[in-house]
């Protein structure tokens, strides 16, 4: 990544687009503290993520972020309930405790997976698995949701469900969403779209908060930019 300077406001929905190898996922990993920049800083809610110790960065990630990836989103050995409970169990908290259990149930209900708590990931469809991953990302109500191609492996209808849920988290829940995608229809949910190429920010497209997630305005702007 080179020369990138940007700020994402709380409650904002931001998307990063670009071709493969443009640095979208790397940028997401830097924002989440999974990777460290060789120079420059990443600030999350006032904390310099890039300068924290590994343990401190991990703690910050655990408390303030939720990740959704395209593949390998669930631990195959664990049930749906256990996968969603992971952020609690990793933190050494008892996920069967009242408030945590209620949060898990609510997260599963919000992605329409109530009743599938005991299922294993291999007993679920790809869409259901991604919804479980989303429930896990949401369960602690983190301030920042980081989604890396969350719909890349899904059919259109299931992908739309996932994006709708992310948008509701942002619009109704006040959570910040950073989405990485190469799909204009997914990026059209965002308030702002950044276009990346060769590790640099090429353009910023402001779409504003819209109930209608039609991709036409974004596609037109991308066409104007010759993308």
């Amino acid at each position, binding site marked *: 990544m080179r020369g990138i300077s940007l700020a994402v406001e709380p409650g904002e929905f931001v998307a990063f687009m670009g071709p493969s190898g443009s640095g979208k996922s790397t940028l997401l990993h830097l924002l*989440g503290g*999974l990777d460290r920049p060789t120079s420059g800083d990443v600030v999350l809610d006032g904390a310099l993520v890039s300068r924290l110790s*590994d*343990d401190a960065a*991990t*703690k910050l*990630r*655990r*408390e303030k972020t939720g*990740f959704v*990836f395209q*593949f*390998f*989103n*669930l*631990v*195959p*050995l*664990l049930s749906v309930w256990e996968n969603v409970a*992971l*952020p609690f*169990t*990793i*933190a*050494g908290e008892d996920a069967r405790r009242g408030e945590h259990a209620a949060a898990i149930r609510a997260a599963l209900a919000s992605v329409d997976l109530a009743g599938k708590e005991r299922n294993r990931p291999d007993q679920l469809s790809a869409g259901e698995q991604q919804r479980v991953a989303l429930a*896990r990302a949401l369960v602690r109500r983190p301030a920042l949701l980081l989604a890396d191609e969350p719909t890349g492996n899904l059919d259109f209808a299931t992908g739309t469900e996932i994006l709708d849920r992310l948008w509701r988290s942002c619009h109704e829940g006040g959570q910040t969403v950073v989405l990485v995608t190469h799909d204009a229809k997914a990026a059209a949910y965002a308030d702002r779209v950044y276009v990346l190429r060769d590790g640099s920010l090429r353009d910023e497209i402001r779409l504003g908060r819209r109930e209608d997630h039609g991709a036409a305005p974004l596609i037109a702007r991308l066409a104007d930019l010759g993308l």
Partner: protein
Amino acid sequence: MRALDALARRTLVARPLRTILTIVGIALGVGVLVAALVLNAGLDAAAEQSVRDQLGRTDLRVAAFEERGLSRASLAAMATTPGVAVVAPELERRTYPVPDPLAGSGLPVPVTVIGVDPAADAALHDRPLASGSPLPAGGGDVVLVSDALARADGLAIGASITLNGSVESGPRAFRVSGILAAVPGDPDPVGRSILMPLQAAQALFGTDAVSRADLGLTPGSGVAAVTAALESRLSAEPYTLTTPGELIADLRASTADFRAMIALVAAVSLFGGAFLIFNTLAMTVAERAHDVGLLRAAGMTRRQVTLLVLISAGHLGVAGVALGWRPGWGSPLRSRRTCRRAGASWRSASS
């Protein structure tokens, strides 16, 4: 910690065949390791017990270096050495019993004859009887036979046994006055021993010498001082002078190579077990790299990831040890009889 433990268990259960094979491999390694350690400890203990059985309360043993044995003059010199309280001479020979002409034509099995001075012998050695009466202090043509010999040859109290002696004295008949209890310490490799008065044994084998003399020291006498005194007084024939500690050390030294080999086998087993754990965990970590990445993204620290792997290793190790230690512990104990025989052979060799 509990959550990590549960996840570690799940990881192992997810690959049951690999986990079972690893545990079995570790169990085999642990079994061999424990067996080797127990065997080595058993050999040490057997060496010590063997010497204790053989020497009883003896403080020093003077053994003839040559076949002609120790003369009466040497025994007299020992008895008059300051610090020596008891001199218990023994004459040991191997011979064949004369077969009963009515009892078939089988080849006779050799026996070990020990001639002892009954009074002095009782001061240093415990020779419990299963039945019958001990050797009379005044001598005579009576013998005590070992329990194994009595059973094998059908000898009862009052029975007669004829033993081949020297060419000059020829065979002589003895009456069985007692049967020795079956206890460790039999000088014969297979337990076929006969105890008789020293004079009778000397008459049977046509000698007035003895094979060895066990010495009991007066309380407060130093072994080193008595040894020095004996060395200055015994000059009639060559001899060896040993303490029980030296005999134990000799026996242990005689098995040093064997025990070193056993230790090597144990070390290889230990390495094999460790390698199995490492291999299994390396494969598991490689397979679960994406899971680990996911757990890291969800907030698991590097230390927790390391702990997860170590807990898995711990489970494999504990299961392997639990499965392997008992057979490893039991197998040398089951072969204790063999060890005892080995002990008997050592006794024969050392005397």
